[in-house]
Every structure is written in C-alpha cells, then in structure tokens.
C-alpha cells in the first residue's frame, strides 16, 4: 500500500541555521511529490512539487527539495531559516497514470524556530 513517512514529528532550529525535513514514500510507480506548509490556524500552502525532470526542485520562500528515487525520498531543505518559517510541514504523494489524483499525506513535521 502507498504510504508517506515523515520520521521527525518535531524539529527545532535556530534562526539562520539550515534546515532539512525528511520524507520517505512507499509507492510502486513514479509518484508526484509535494511539500505543503500549514501555519497555525491556516490552510495548506504549496511550497513545491516534483512531477518529472530535474530532481532538484525550487519552491517558494527559498525552499528546495530533492527527489532521490533510489532512496524513495523527497527531503525539503532551506539554507537559512527565518522565524516566519515556524509551521507544520506536510509531504504528500500523488498517483500518476491513474484515473484519480488522491494525495496521500505524511503525518507532518512541526518546525519551531529559536531566536
């Protein structure tokens, strides 16, 4: 069965430090991959996505993610974290080639930023 794992439930980094949030997926075919961010009390905002092509994708707010097929991973990175990045981050996988686009979400990683 398809699944998405975000191993880190909670991460704390200092402002200005680099960040990497992990995401691993289990899927039998080539996936669509997404990272969404949810600020407290807010909806989900798309940070970036991977459909095909270059495995390093750039997103909004200075985020990037790298698709590594051999590791079934799609980790999110940012070189220098800002206090406003404190939020919950969700990795999601979508089907390709099927009749539907059902996103399967990971359980989220809550990012806290220390001054």
């Amino acid at each position, binding site marked *: 069965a398809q699944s998405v794992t975000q191993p880190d439930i909670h991460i704390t980094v200092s402002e200005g430090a680099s960040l990497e949030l992990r995401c691993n997926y289990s899927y039998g075919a080539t996936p669509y991959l*997404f990272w969404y961010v949810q600020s407290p009390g807010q*909806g*989900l905002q798309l940070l970036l996505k991977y459909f095909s092509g270059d495995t390093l994708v750039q997103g909004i707010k200075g985020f990037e993610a790298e698709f590594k097929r051999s590791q079934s991973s799609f980790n999110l990175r940012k070189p220098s974290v800002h206090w406003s990045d404190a939020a919950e981050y969700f990795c999601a996988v979508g089907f390709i080639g099927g*009749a539907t*686009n059902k996103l399967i*979400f990971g359980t989220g990683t809550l990012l806290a930023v220390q001054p």
Partner: protein
Amino acid sequence: DTAVSQTPKYLVTQMGNDKSIKCEQNLGHDTMYWYKQDSKKFLKIMFSYNNKELIINETVPNRFSPKSPDKAHLNLHINSLELGDSAVYFCASSRDRQETQYFGPGTRLLVL
C-alpha cells in the same frame, strides 16, 4: 481574488445536528476534493469530484454527503453529527485529476 474559499471558517454545533460546509473555487478547475484533518493533524481524502462527477469516495460514513451543483462548487453535508466528526475539513481543487491541488483555508468543526 481568493482561489479556494470555504464557509464557514468555524462551526460549533451539538451532537445529532445536520450541518453543511460550502466550498467555492474561482480557478476554473475541473476537479475538487474534500479532506479531513484530525486532531493529530493527519490529513485524509474523503471525496473527489471531476466535472460534477464523483470519482473518489473513501471509506466515509453515509452521514457525509458531498454535492457538486457546478464545477466551481463542492459542498459537504453532514447528518447526525457525532463527537468524532470534530476536525478541520479542507476543500481543494486542481485543474484536472493529475494536477497540483490547491487548498482552501479549512473549516474547523467542533461537535459538542
């Protein structure tokens, strides 16, 4: 210029009541979705409509009934509300079935 909007934003109601949540998108998308986010922040799809046709219906109690009057709207009606229905419900839309999904701000439902 809101892309995906939901009303109401907050909904507090008693057990046994019937309530509806409305969703509208002005992106011209063909596919719309309902997701449920539980108290542990886990997001799971409930329904999906493409051009007003139901294409995904996950294991959701019959008390939940989606209705799509047109491509721009997907409403969620819930009968006989239970405590376990308390959650945040997100509407989303995509250009077609295999494109990026854009989410609304969510409706926070609390059943007392």
